[in-house]
């Protein structure tokens, strides 16, 4: 039985699977850590610490990319529950659009980082063990362009994450619905 039903009231009906909730929060923790790390490490003087942090940042990116693929696959078999029925249409469309963009950036930011690293002449070796082949060769000019692309994508991602979090809080504190609660793993009322 598909749990997805349209709520007639302000209460959204249906739940996320525990897997979806876990994957969501794992992504959240890694994405935010990677963003903070990315901003911090950039200005560090060249040191072993810097080399380490760059590697950790790349490993986080690869992990986010993989998590996004797993989530999309999971989602195709376990559709996300419906939004509250009393949400205006434009809000529902905005929510769907924002979720689509979040997924796109979960893939685009790591991919841009990976090709940027290749263009700088540094292969990405996941967890220091698994070498990811270079899609492009060393190219200084291209690397500078890709740096801007990775940066712009990341900033858009961060802006969207903030919007996403603000919307969730708005649902919880202003609309007083269960949109945030169900992503925290609470079961919705039958």
């Amino acid at each position: 039985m598909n749990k997805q039903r349209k709520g007639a009231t302000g209460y959204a009906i249906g739940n996320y699977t525990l897997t979806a909730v876990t994957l969501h929060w794992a992504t959240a923790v890694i994405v935010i850590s990677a963003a903070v790390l990315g901003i911090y490490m950039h200005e560090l003087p060249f040191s072993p610490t810097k080399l380490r942090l760059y590697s950790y940042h790349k490993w986080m990116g690869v992990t986010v990319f993989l998590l996004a693929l797993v989530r999309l696959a999971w989602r195709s078999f376990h559709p996300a529950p419906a939004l509250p029925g009393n949400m205006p249409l434009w809000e529902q469309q905005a929510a769907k659009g924002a979720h689509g963009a979040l997924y796109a950036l979960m893939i685009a930011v790591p991919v841009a980082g990976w090709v940027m690293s290749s263009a700088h002449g540094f292969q990405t070796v996941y967890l220091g063990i698994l070498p990811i082949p270079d899609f492009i060769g060393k190219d200084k000019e291209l690397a500078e362009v890709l740096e801007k692309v990775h940066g712009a994508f990341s900033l858009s991602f961060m802006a969207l994450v903030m919007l996403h979090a603000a919307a969730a809080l708005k649902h919880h504190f202003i609309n007083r619905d269960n949109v945030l609660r169900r992503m925290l793993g609470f079961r919705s009322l039958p």
Partner: protein
Amino acid sequence: MRRIMLAVMMALLFAAAADAAPILKEQSRLAFVSRQMGVPVEGGFKRFDAEIDFDPKDTKKSRASITIYIDSIDAGSEEASTEIKRRPWFDAKNHPKAEFVSTSLVPLGAGRYRVSGNMTIKGRTRPASSEFVVRDRGAFRVFEGKFILKRLDFAVGEGAWSDTGTVADEIEVSYLLSVHFQGAKK
């Protein structure tokens, strides 16, 4: 008499010098691969001189010496190339040159040889050896080989940089040295 002696000595000297062929810079290269956090990073030296006196029939008389100018290093990125000349690494200001001087050459068959000698980097001299293969390519004779150099044997990367978890101790050095070649000696 003294003049003849001098002439003979000069002739001998020139004969010896003619045997030690300087390498052809355009057809030679010196590269290395370091591992940073498990990531292989390619680098190389743009300037180096080498003299090779190689006689496949008389390996005992063969010798080679290489001088590498640290300033010409490319460590894979601008940031790394600047850093690596500093004191904790090569200390290029106080030790502008690295050097290898051979002490023995052992034939291994099928055009392969093992050269052993002394490597001096950052004022520290350590024994080093490398296998290489010799090929005659038209007007060139090409020596190609590689070996593992442990950077910490030469205090390359001191202090925080001595952590081999970040930058591995083993550096894979590869070289291709070409000299002029006018056919096999009779």
